[in-house]
């Protein structure tokens, strides 16, 4: 039984090992960037066709922890500026955190037949489950909690809250109907096929700003492509794409 099977397996590994490419630009991007990222990548690749890019999405807090634990990400696009600053403080960043966009929260519903809700109406009796992202490591979750606290609904709605691991999963909870409504990133309402779902943009004065910042990691410090993508994010072209997907331009100081 040993020889033929083992040999065939050995041949298979050989082929698989050969099939793997060398170093690509690895970008860790906040889940709120999921819908916009393919377009940003395409625009960047048009200018730099020889740069293979791979993108890993996740909650910003989780990605920052992974970077601190040695994940090979070259550029970190966070959904806030706290995590990039933390990386810089702990010596895991090679650049100062640079704001590239401002995110917006939206109150989203899965049922296209219903009228858009105002956040104050969340206390209504027909809303059984409300999805937010985990405030502990997802910036949009933290802001969602601030909004509910500002409206004095946090305590009242406690029993109805369900938590997504990141904002993408949170949106999925609403989309699938598992939750009746959710406080998600406005950018995720631009998911293909889901644009008809009712949403209300949340007043930015109800939460601390979602200033989204990026940082080149120590891993990517010597990689020219990391710097190129970093600068590309601030270009007029990238900024225009971001605005089309529900982000606002960062305020320059």
């Amino acid at each position, binding site marked *: 039984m040993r020889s033929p099977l083992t040999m065939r397996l050995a041949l298979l*590994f050989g082929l698989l090992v050969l099939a793997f490419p060398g170093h*690509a630009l690895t970008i860790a991007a906040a889940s709120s960037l999921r819908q916009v990222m393919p377009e940003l990548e395409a625009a960047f690749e048009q200018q730099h066709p020889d740069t293979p890019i*791979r993108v890993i999405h996740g909650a910003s807090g989780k990605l920052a922890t*992974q970077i601190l*634990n*040695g*994940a090979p990400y070259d550029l970190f696009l966070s959904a806030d500026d706290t995590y990039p600053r933390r990386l810089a403080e702990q010596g895991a960043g090679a650049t100062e955190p640079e704001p590239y966009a401002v995110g917006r929260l939206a109150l989203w519903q899965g049922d296209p037949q219903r009228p858009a809700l105002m956040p104050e109406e969340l206390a209504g009796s027909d809303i059984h489950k409300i999805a937010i992202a985990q405030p502990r490591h997802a910036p949009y979750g933290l802001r969602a909690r601030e909004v509910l606290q500002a409206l004095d609904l946090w305590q009242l709605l406690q029993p109805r809250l369900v938590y997504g691991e990141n904002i993408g*999963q949170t949106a999925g909870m609403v989309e699938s109907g598992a939750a009746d409504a959710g406080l998600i990133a406005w950018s995720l309402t631009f998911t293909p096929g889901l644009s008809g779902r009712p949403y209300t943009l949340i007043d930015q004065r109800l939460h601390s700003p979602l200033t989204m910042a990026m940082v080149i990691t120590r891993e990517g410090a010597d990689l020219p492509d990391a710097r190129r993508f970093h600068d590309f994010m601030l270009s007029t072209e990238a900024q225009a794409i971001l605005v089309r997907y529900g982000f606002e331009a960062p305020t320059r100081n």
Partner: protein
Amino acid sequence: MPELSPQDWQAIAVTLKLCALTTAILLVLATPLAWWLAHRQSPSRTVVQALVALPLVLPPTVLGFYLLIALGPRGPVGQTLEAMGLTHLAFSFEGILVASVIYSLPFAVQPLLEAFRHLGARPVEVAASLGAGPLDRLFTVILPLCRGGFIVAATLTFAHTLGEFGVILMLGGSIPGETQVLSVLIYDYAEAMDYAAAHRLSLGLLIFAFVVLVTVYSFNRRFDGVRP
């Protein structure tokens, strides 16, 4: 059959490579371990048996968490590797390979242990008395007589590694071409609300898992019949 994307194929390649390497490594490691467990009556045997079975009981997050700490740049294994001029193992293919070997260990040991117990010590003793050396005994007595056990161990290890998720997610992240295995890619698709993509991979895995189990059970039956 719906069209698979390049990312799907990349994940399939990573997954197959991980499953095949894990299976090969585990067959080599688990054979002596299972033999020892089958024939030793010392008190340490119980402790070793419990250690082998731990991954069955522990949540994958516990294993993933400790492996991340141990294999990462600040952990004992990671630091030792870095001191030797190598790189640490967190978020790398080698890292998830180590994790898979540990995670699937009981699935390789258990069927072999069963087969070795059925075999008993006698055939090997007879072979030794006839002058067969240890390697000779392994290849001409143990392997042919316990063929069914080896096939079941290999298949279960392969299949269990295929179904691995939590440990890989914690230790490997989701790096395409490196640590993004099928189960993690499906999770990623579901998070992106790309249900069509999640569905085509999930359905494929479902069918594959079913075929694997049917294979295992049919082998089990066939070899039950020829056991002494």
